[in-house]
């Protein structure tokens, strides 16, 4: 690296060294212009990136005749809730409310299972010394990189022989067994950041691992638990392959599978309703995002770096 003239000084972040002869006001205007350009460019990019989402929402309120064809506009004079009314009717005698309930059951089950199993297992990796820990930790990391397609066929065969196809058990059992190594890893990283003196002190007071975990670690791990809950909810909500493999009766379908059925049956005859149902299916995710933005984005940026 280049040698530096300045010693370890707190980096002067705000005021750039203004050229001597420039009056202060001028550099201020220059700064303002630069900042305006930045915002114009950034906003233009945001508009471009969000256009598909906005198009989806706008289309869900438009009559069919205005969705296809020469209609790039997001606005219409004929906005209505008709598409949503059709979408809520559901498919093949099953109400869309049922699909929502199914998605919710699966997602809540996934959150409960993942939070429990991942935090318990992570405690072992992060806080207990036992022979084989390093080896198992390495294997856990390796499963992060493993294409899961290599396990779905035997899993399916076993569940089929146990008569569990077309139940939620194959979709949930992995959550209760910390199969999403990503979350275990996230929690291990988080727990390692907590001071070791905490459990030392608790041990001196005679606390065992169960108490250290339950009354010291868990409360302190709230941010990691929240990130895990949010992500496991959203992943379960959006999951398509799992339900596609295991569920056969429409009464048990979660939304993504119901959407596929809807697409198959209407096949672009009712575009508006199809898109309205897509919006409904994403609604909880969007609400989650608006409410928990901070946690979600922060979670991604810290978890990513720890890799």
């Amino acid at each position, binding site marked *: 690296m280049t040698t530096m003239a300045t010693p370890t000084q707190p980096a002067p972040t705000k005021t750039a060294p203004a050229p001597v002869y420039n009056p202060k006001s001028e550099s201020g205007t220059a700064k303002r212009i630069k900042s305006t350009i930045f915002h114009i460019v950034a906003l233009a990019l945001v508009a471009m990136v969000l256009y598909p989402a906005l198009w989806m929402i706008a289309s869900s309120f438009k009559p069919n005749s205005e969705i296809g064809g020469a209609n790039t506009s997001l606005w219409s004079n004929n906005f209505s809730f008709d598409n949503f009314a059709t979408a809520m009717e559901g498919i093949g005698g099953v109400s869309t409310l049922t699909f929502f309930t199914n998605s919710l059951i699966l997602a809540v089950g996934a959150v409960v299972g993942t939070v429990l199993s991942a935090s318990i297992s992570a*405690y072992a990796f992060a806080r207990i010394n036992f022979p084989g820990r390093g080896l198992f930790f390495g294997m856990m990391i390796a499963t992060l990189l493993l294409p899961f397609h290599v396990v779905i066929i035997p899993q399916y065969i076993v569940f*089929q022989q146990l008569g569990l196809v077309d139940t939620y058990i194959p979709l949930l059992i992995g959550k209760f067994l910390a199969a999403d190594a990503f979350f275990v890893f996230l929690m291990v990283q988080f727990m390692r950041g907590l001071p070791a003196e905490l459990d030392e002190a608790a041990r001196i007071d005679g606390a065992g691992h169960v108490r250290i975990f339950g009354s010291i670690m868990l409360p302190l791990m709230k941010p990691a638990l929240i990130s895990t809950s949010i992500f496991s909810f959203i992943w379960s909500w959006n999951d398509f392959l799992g339900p596609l493999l295991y569920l056969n009766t429409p009464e048990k379908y979660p939304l993504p599978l119901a959407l596929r059925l809807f697409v198959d049956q209407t096949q672009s005859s009712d575009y508006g309703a199809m898109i309205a149902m897509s919006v409904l299916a994403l609604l909880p995710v969007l609400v989650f995002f608006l409410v928990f933005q901070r946690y979600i984005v922060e979670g991604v940026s810290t978890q*990513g770096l720890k890799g």
Partner: protein
Amino acid sequence: MTQSPTLSRRSASAPAQPRKSRRRGADARAGYTFLLPWLLGFIALTVGPMISSLYLSFTNYNLFDAPKWIGFDNYVSLFQDERFLQSVGVTMQYVVFGTPLKLAAALAIAMLLNSKRKGQGFYRSAFYAPSLIGASVSIAIVWKAMFGDSGPVDQGLSFFGINLGGWVGNPNMTMGMMILLTVWQFGAPMVIFLAGLKQIPADLYEAASMDGAGPVRKFMNITWPMLSPVIFFNLLMETIHAFQIFASAYIISNGEGGPAGSTLFYTLYLYLRGFSDFRMGYASAMAWLLVIVVGIITLIFFKTSKSWVHYSGDSK
């Protein structure tokens, strides 16, 4: 990836020997008890199935009849199967073009946003949003509608005098549309890049400015090397994920991989073979080939990383 932790390893200044070993025994028991959920899952849902699918890949198992050992037949016929070769081609195209484009977009926008200006949080969230919904069935449906014949994308392009005649139905255009779908989800790697950029000390850039370095030289000599561990992480994870794209391809092609096989992604073909034709031995061979290929790529990434990934002196 890092090895076992050092933080909680406190080799106690040992009071009495027997007490220490008793504690160690208790720790071992407690360790495996707490590890149980993961360990059970690891054995029952990962290791066991991996071994079975390796075995199945050498059989003609079809879910209804007992598996019969056929040696390497599945692997041999894979390479004579035109649809399989096509799925490899489609997936490679997607990985080789989609991933670098996505990461380039992520890095460019992260650098644009890396300042102390107002509105950072808003921009970051707005750009991140597609990553959260991009792989869903809903977005696949929307994408299909937007890129349909005379859909809004076509209309928008024809405004500039570009007439492509639809994307969804045109085998030459579907890949472009799938790549755009993945590039659209640049937000997740962008957020990670942004966090990495913030770690680069500002005085490095100031010193470079004093030495008269322009933006290109600053990028090549400061940003790139300082960010290289993050670039490596993103590149590895995004590449591995790209191999596994499924839901979007399934929805956009009605589960068929069309038109003309142009969206027959590897995992889609695997699904069709395994769960539509019930040729589970064949599909298992495909799955294992995927594992081997991803493993080799990961290995190559790690080997070559020594020459371009720089970890700062105090490895953290």
